[in-house]
């Protein structure tokens, strides 16, 4: 007889699928963080003086800051001197110029993850800028993108090739001092993606990055900057996975999106960092700052499916600066075992008739804790602005926790804000109805959970939607192997 208790057992039995360790020789910087570390990283990348200075300034500011403590998560104090801040696969030393030059073992890693750069992505028409630990490995489709005038390259390369764009936009959406982890990222960021879509251009394909953390004890500090010039359009996909490690690893990324007038950016994430084992040992600390600025008539849409990481601290946000700009946030966050997530969004309405939509679905299982934290702010200029927020929680088992902390601030009388939240569970009655119709419990739970997340999944690009559904099933059903 399948009951909720049985589902819990199945959940408990689940193990991490992407947890294999690649045996690739890496060049890793000894642990520790000083101004010299920052200089080393900058020198390693042959950065110009202004970039080094920018990093150093950030580092000095970071030293004065404190770890934020308001989130509903608990983790031991991080010793920033115990972390290595640079790790590059050795075979990359000379920098491969094409896929053929890429270490085959590295490519095999992506194959295992189900993202073979070589063929499948080509068939799918996706350009991938893969970040393996800290250095961008290979960039495909660059030619085709160049034709359209789209710039898609590692940010380290963009520092050299497009310094004017980097200087203008880096730190413009997430200021250096924004928060502790963002400042740290500014000082030691290793690599990441840079995208520029010229005026009026519709990016001819989905752009994608797959992040992994491979080297033990390396923090990954990638940095992404996407600029959509006036009237342009781009859809960007980010996937994250990390191998199993006993110790916790730190991941503090910064993503900045700039949508100029009439531009549209769609940013989708499937985050499957290693969540730690069933006893809560190991796993990634995922402290990410993602923010977008939307100018007049621009639209920014964040979609995320978060199933991994031991601790998640992440609030992809939109500053709706221009009149009529639109911000969207669609999120599924699943926590199991001892995972903790404190995630949500901020919608800052500055312009007239700005609109935002927040759909957040939290699923808690095992002994995990899942919190939605969101801010909707209508500033005095937000005439006629609107927000709709719906955040639902699903609890599986009686040892998990779900929280909702929505902050709603309004300073304009014509701004309309609506917030709704519900909490529910998969009841024994629902499961019995399914069973009576011949559907086993596992399938029934998966149907109900997928139904719960439907509104978010439909926002994902097709390939990702399939992957997201699978991820949830893996995370919940324990149908491993």
């Amino acid at each position: 007889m399948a009951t909720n208790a049985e589902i819990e057992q199945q959940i408990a039995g689940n193990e991490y699928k992407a947890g294999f360790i690649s045996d690739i020789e890496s060049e890793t910087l000894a642990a520790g963080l000083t101004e010299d570390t920052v200089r080393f990283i900058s020198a390693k990348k042959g950065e110009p003086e202004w970039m080094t200075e920018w990093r150093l300034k950030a580092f000095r500011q970071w030293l004065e800051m404190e770890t934020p403590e308001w989130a509903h998560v608990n983790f031991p104090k991080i010793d920033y001197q115990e972390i290595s801040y640079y790790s590059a696969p050795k075979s990359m030393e000379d920098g491969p110029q094409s896929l053929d030059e890429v270490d085959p073992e590295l490519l095999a890693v992506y194959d295992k993850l189900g993202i073979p750069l070589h063929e499948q992505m080509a068939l799918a028409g996706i350009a991938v800028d893969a970040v393996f630990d800290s250095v961008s490995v290979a960039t495909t489709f660059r030619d085709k993108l160049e034709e359209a005038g789209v710039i898609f390259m590692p940010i380290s390369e963009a520092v050299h090739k497009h310094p004017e764009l980097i200087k203008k936009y880096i730190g413009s959406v997430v200021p250096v001092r924004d928060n502790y982890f963002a400042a740290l990222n500014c000082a030691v960021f290793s690599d990441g993606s840079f995208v520029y879509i010229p005026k009026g251009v519709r990016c001819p394909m989905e752009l994608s990055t797959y992040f992994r953390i491979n080297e033990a004890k390396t923090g990954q500090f990638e940095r992404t900057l996407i600029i959509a010039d006036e009237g342009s359009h781009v859809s960007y996909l980010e996937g994250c996975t990390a191998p199993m490690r006993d110790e916790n690893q730190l991941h503090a990324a910064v993503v900045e999106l700039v949508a100029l007038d009439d531009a549209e950016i769609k940013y989708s994430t499937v985050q499957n960092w290693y969540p730690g084992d069933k006893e809560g040992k190991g796993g990634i600390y995922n402290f990410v700052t993602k923010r977008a600025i939307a100018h007049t008539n621009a639209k920014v849409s964040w979609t995320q499916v978060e199933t991994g990481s031991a601790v998640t601290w992440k609030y992809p946000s939109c500053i709706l600066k221009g009149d009529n700009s639109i911000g969207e946030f669609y999120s599924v966050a699943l926590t199991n075992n001892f995972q903790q997530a404190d995630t949500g969004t901020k919608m800052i309405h500055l312009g007239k008739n700005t609109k935002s939509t927040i759909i957040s679905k939290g699923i808690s299982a095992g002994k995990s804790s899942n919190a939605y934290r969101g801010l909707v702010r209508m500033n005095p200029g937000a005439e006629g602005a609107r927000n709709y927020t719906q955040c639902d929680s699903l609890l599986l088992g009686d040892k998990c926790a779900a929280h909702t902390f929505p902050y709603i601030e309004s300073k304009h009388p014509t701004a309309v804000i609506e917030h709704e939240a519900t909490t529910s569970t998969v009841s024994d009655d629902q499961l019995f109805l399914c069973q009576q119709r011949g559907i086993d419990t596992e399938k029934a739970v998966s149907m109900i959970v997928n139904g719960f997340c439907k509104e978010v999944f439909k926002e994902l690009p097709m390939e990702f939607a399939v992957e997201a559904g699978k991820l949830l099933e893996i995370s919940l059903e324990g149908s491993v192997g």
Partner: protein
Amino acid sequence: MTAEFVTQHLALAQHRSPLSWLSEFNERGQARFADAVIPNRKTEAWKYTSLASLTQGDFAHAAPSVDASTVTLPNIAGIDALRLVVINGELNIEASDAKALELIVHFADATQEQQDQINALLGTIQGEGGHLFAQLNDANINAGLFLNIPRNQRLKQPIHICYLTTPNSEKTGFTVNTRLLVNLETSAEATVIEHYIGDEEQNSFTNAVSEFRVGDNAKLIHYRLQLMTEGALHIGNAHIDLQRDANYEGFHLGLGTKLTRNDIVVNHNVGGSHSEMAGVYVPKNKQLIDFHTCIEHKAAHCTSNEVFRGIMNDQSKAVFNGRIQIHRDAQKTLAELSNKNLLLTNTAEINTKPELEIYADDVKCAHGATVAQLEEKAMFYLQSRGISKADAKVMLSFGFINELIDNLPHEAIGDWLRPILAHRFGRSSDLDDQLAQGN
């Protein structure tokens, strides 16, 4: 600045009750208050509420022994209530109904048996983790009031406790601490109206703490009405403990003052209890009204329903923080919270945060919050019937609040409050006034 506030109020709290147990209680409160950290904008619970007007103020003890015949005492027409009058924190015997004085006992006049009862309950309902103003109140209790309704007794007439503050002739700043302790024994029923009012413009700081224990199967109807003048400061704490199958119906109103901060905590301690709470806040000019409510579900099969509405006018500001916490053992809980707000001007502000914290799986919870303007369709409908836009706005704003007033358990209280609230929106209706007078 803030250290000065603690020093000043500690000095005011030096006086001790002659009752040894109460004096000890005072001392414990004083010790905690001395260690208290004054919250600032980084303190989550005070993020939107600045205490500057309080910590920068200069307060002394209120003028004692005011002659009741020199002040106007409010009456709730149409309701047969037992009135108890407290002026500047002192129980006023002349102005109070004799029957009310029989029911409610001043701590200092309590019999030994009552003292034991008070001593056993006092401070246990709000717990020692309360915020610094609760501690300040603990340090200051000397004129506490105690109401006990024995088992199976139903008090038909509502108790109307009228807390009046009145300035001295120099109009200098003064502070008043009030304390109420109510115990409803098994299957007892009572209505308690706490009514805070000032007779003229004043620079007063009221720190009001009330504790209610609602016993098994007992029922409490509770009104807490803050109708102070606009220059006053009001910090309120109301803590309600519900035992098995207990029932609580509460209505909380925030109308006057420069700064109001109200913390209301309802504890569903034992299974089967039910709470139904409504609230209204209508700040104008530069007023700030802050309601922090917390419904603690600690046991299974309890239900709670909370509805708060606010209208912010002029440059006023309101804060609403509605928290529902479902503890691990509180299975089969049904909890709902709704908070709706209207901003009438470009300079008014609302900060609302409906929070859910859930640790049990078989529960059904929902909360909703909205900030909006008056519905266009409704405006148009009224205008199409020949009503001016300005009048339509007043009618609809009032209607938004009136929905809650209409649902009050005592119709007469609604009739009495309606014109007070209506005047607030520039609506004066002879119809309301007539009704308020019980015609």
